[in-house]
């Protein structure tokens, strides 16, 4: 064995994220951690537990529920809240629910705007949160590569990419003016592969949908969509078939495409990724609404 100098890549990422979470806990009056139930949220949760050990993390979890998640995600969410002992706040845009907004009837763009972007703004205002920890990574999408770790939102929750605070060393500027809020991204420097390596090393539980299993799917616009509940109406001629599929990202099931895979455990997923040719966002319908669509959504307040 050669003598190891410094920390390994994963150790360094872990320490950096813990450092960021602690800064948030002490710098803001009412921070919250956004919990989306996905693998990044699972890693965030574990990092938060580590950061404040032996205490529990000094902030609640917020799940902005679009009401269109996979059923298994809800089970997993409630289990994690129980196991960590953290307060879980679930927020639904009730106006949107009353109007029956959904991806099948209103399209992905409107659904995401009302049930996710607007819902998040509502929750932040309703509870008076001044900082929200979120699991976005810079490797996910080009516009995220330019975002700060501490990313300021205006009174109207907008992100102004041309007017970001310079962020030097680890000196995060947490000062807010009236009505401004902060989004903080402790996983900024992580990649999808880092996330899976960390899940593997730390034995972190994730939603079973990430693992391959026989599932009922239909093929729509080139993606494999799971028939997750009764709200999914089959189009004429469509017949669900059972395939071994898994999901690389989890969101609203009608907006999340599965991939055919046999990877049914974490090491297998990592092996598969090492030879993958498509990026994880590929399965997300939302990114393909047009060029620069993620940048536009972020400016409007989507994560």
């Amino acid at each position: 064995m050669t003598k190891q100098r410094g920390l390994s890549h994963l150790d360094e990422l872990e320490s950096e994220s813990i450092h960021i979470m602690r800064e948030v806990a002490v710098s803001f009056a009412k921070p919250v951690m956004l919990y989306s139930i996905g693998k990044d949220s699972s890693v965030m949760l574990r990092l938060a537990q580590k950061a404040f050990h032996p205490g529990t993390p000094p902030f609640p979890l917020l799940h902005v529920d679009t009401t269109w998640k996979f059923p298994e995600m809800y089970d997993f969410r409630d289990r994690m809240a129980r196991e960590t002992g953290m307060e879980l706040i679930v927020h639904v845009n009730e106006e949107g629910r009353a109007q029956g907004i959904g991806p099948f009837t209103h399209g992905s763009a409107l659904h995401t705007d009302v049930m996710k972007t607007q819902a998040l703004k509502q929750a932040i205002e309703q509870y008076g949160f001044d900082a929200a920890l979120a699991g976005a990574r810079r490797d996910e999408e080009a516009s995220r590569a330019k975002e700060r770790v501490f990313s300021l939102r205006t009174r109207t929750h907008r992100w102004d990419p041309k007017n970001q605070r310079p962020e030097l060393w680890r000196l995060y500027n947490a000062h807010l003016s009236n009505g401004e809020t902060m989004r903080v991204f402790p996983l900024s420097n992580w990649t999808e592969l880092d996330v899976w390596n960390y899940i593997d090393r730390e034995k972190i539980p994730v939603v079973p949908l990430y693992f391959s299993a026989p599932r009922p799917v239909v093929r729509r616009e080139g993606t494999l969509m799971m028939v997750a509940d009764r709200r999914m109406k089959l189009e004429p001629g469509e017949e669900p078939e059972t395939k071994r599929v898994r999901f690389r990202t989890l969101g609203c099931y009608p907006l999340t495409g599965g991939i055919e895979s046999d990877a049914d455990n974490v090491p297998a997923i990592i092996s598969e990724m090492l030879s993958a040719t498509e990026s994880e966002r590929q399965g997300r319908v939302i990114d393909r609404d047009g060029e620069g669509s993620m940048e536009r959504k972020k400016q409007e307040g989507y994560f």
Partner: protein
Amino acid sequence: MSPVTPSQEFRAYVNARETRDVLRFITCGSVDDGKSTLIGRLLYESKLVFQDQLDRVEADSKRHGTQGGALDLALLVDGLQAEREQGITIDVAYRTFSTGKRSFIVADTPGHEQYTRNMATGASTADLAIVLIDARKGVMPQTRRHTTILALLGIRHVILAVNKMDLVGWSRTVHEGITGVYCRFAKQLDVTNVTSIPVSALTGGNVIKPSVEMGWYHGPTLLQALETADVATDRERAPFRMSVQWVNRPDAGFRGFAGTIASGLVRPGDPVLICPAQKPSTVSRIVTADGDLACARPGQAVTLTLADDVDVSRGDVIASPTKPPGRSDQFAGHLIWMHENAMLPQRPYLLKIGTHVAGAQVTALKYKLNVESLERVAAKTLALNDIAYCNINLDRQIAFDPYRELKETGGFILIDRYTHTTVGAGMIDFALRRASNLTRHAFTVDKPARSVQKNQKACVLWFTGLSGSGKSTTANAVEQRLYVLGRHSYVLDGENLRHGLTEDLGFTAADRVENVRRIAEVAKLFVDAGLIVLVSVISPFRDERQMARRMMEEGEFVEVFVDAPLEVCERRDPKGLYRKARTGEIKNFTGIDSPYEPPENPDIVLKAGERSADELADQVIAYLRSRVEM
């Protein structure tokens, strides 16, 4: 189909991930040197680009590409729509990639002059820099500027990538010429570790694979140089430092100090010093969620418990007692200005260093650095992207190290007190011992004694408002009443003082700040003498009025806003100044071509456009009576 079992490749990969370290580097160069293309090439050739991303770049190349519809790798990196349209990178972007030997975090920073602050931002966390040079152009002013910033931020390892070699006929002479010029400049800045590599980002030559066209070059390719650069700074052998982020008190039985270790090793039983208070203690445990550690290293986020019940809070530095950090409230160091609003000496800012936030002022601008010629130029203010050497004064003592010894305890940012944006970044050079060498003599007859003697509580009535609003007239009327009431007072009139105390100052923003500072200092002395001081000065900026307030004790500063509309003041124009300002005869006139920032929460508002000086004076006296000053 059978379930997939981990392959041999996977097992090797998992083993490597525990030993593979990370190199953070920055790429910099002038516009069009090909930075984004080079990073795109690194990502592309190390097979980190997924097919769907590539498909999109291919489509984009046809629309926005600069390669005539051919695959434009810069588009992999240039993320924002605005940048794609302009064809330039406008902000710092971070990318990650890894090879079997190392993981890399790349900061891609813009070459545009007005975005120098982004380069400093990217450099602050980098271990190494790739400086790009267009082989056709050689060392440009921007190259010198960037290298100066790299040196200031403590980067000692530079890879000089002489790009576009395909456009100079793969010429060895060109490469050697540029290398020579660059190394001579870099040496002046103490950047002596330079590896110069001739490359072509467009064809990929010497980026990952050796270039067939440049057989005369025998050094490493760019990727090899990145994989093998030894940037370890022996932080483990440096004295122990940990800035306390957070005091962890989940229950009465546990009190731990959470932080990230900046340098040195720490073990249970180690003696430590809590700085700047310099209280000794001993480490009892190194607590982590994965169990207590026998030893913790630089970069690790841990929680320490101490053997004694010493007072430790956020911002303190837990340090080695044999080599403790310095302690001071005054420093000399470099400052990079990062905001459109100029830096004004004496203006109060917030300074964040480590986990500590303190009030700060630049007390002296020693010189501005011309980053191309390295000449030192005199300066009164700093504009966006200026770099200066200055003295900084804090409102309290802090623990620190010179930046060249440790970035974590020597680098700081300045934050605007109103907008709360980050306006500057600096590097501490050394402490100025002036204040700690001068001990204050304690005199027996003090402020309370003088107050008792005069039968009044000393205070400052700070009249602020536009020229011609009636500040001096009202102050005069107030003082007449105080005199009749047997009170001891004095008027400091901004205009009159310009004949003596402040005669060397003009009306620029910087001079106005100094003007207010001097008057506030004098007012403070008069308050100490037990007087009711009436200050009449336009004092147009909130920051400086706040500064004056902070110089006094709680309750001593009474902000009186003499509120008369500009039209009223201009109509009165008692000294004919507005007329001169309107014709351009005098410059920087408040309300005309220089701003007035009205107080947000004044103690007294005098409606000077509607009421007479006598009525206003009565209002002030009534206020003072209500506050037991009289």
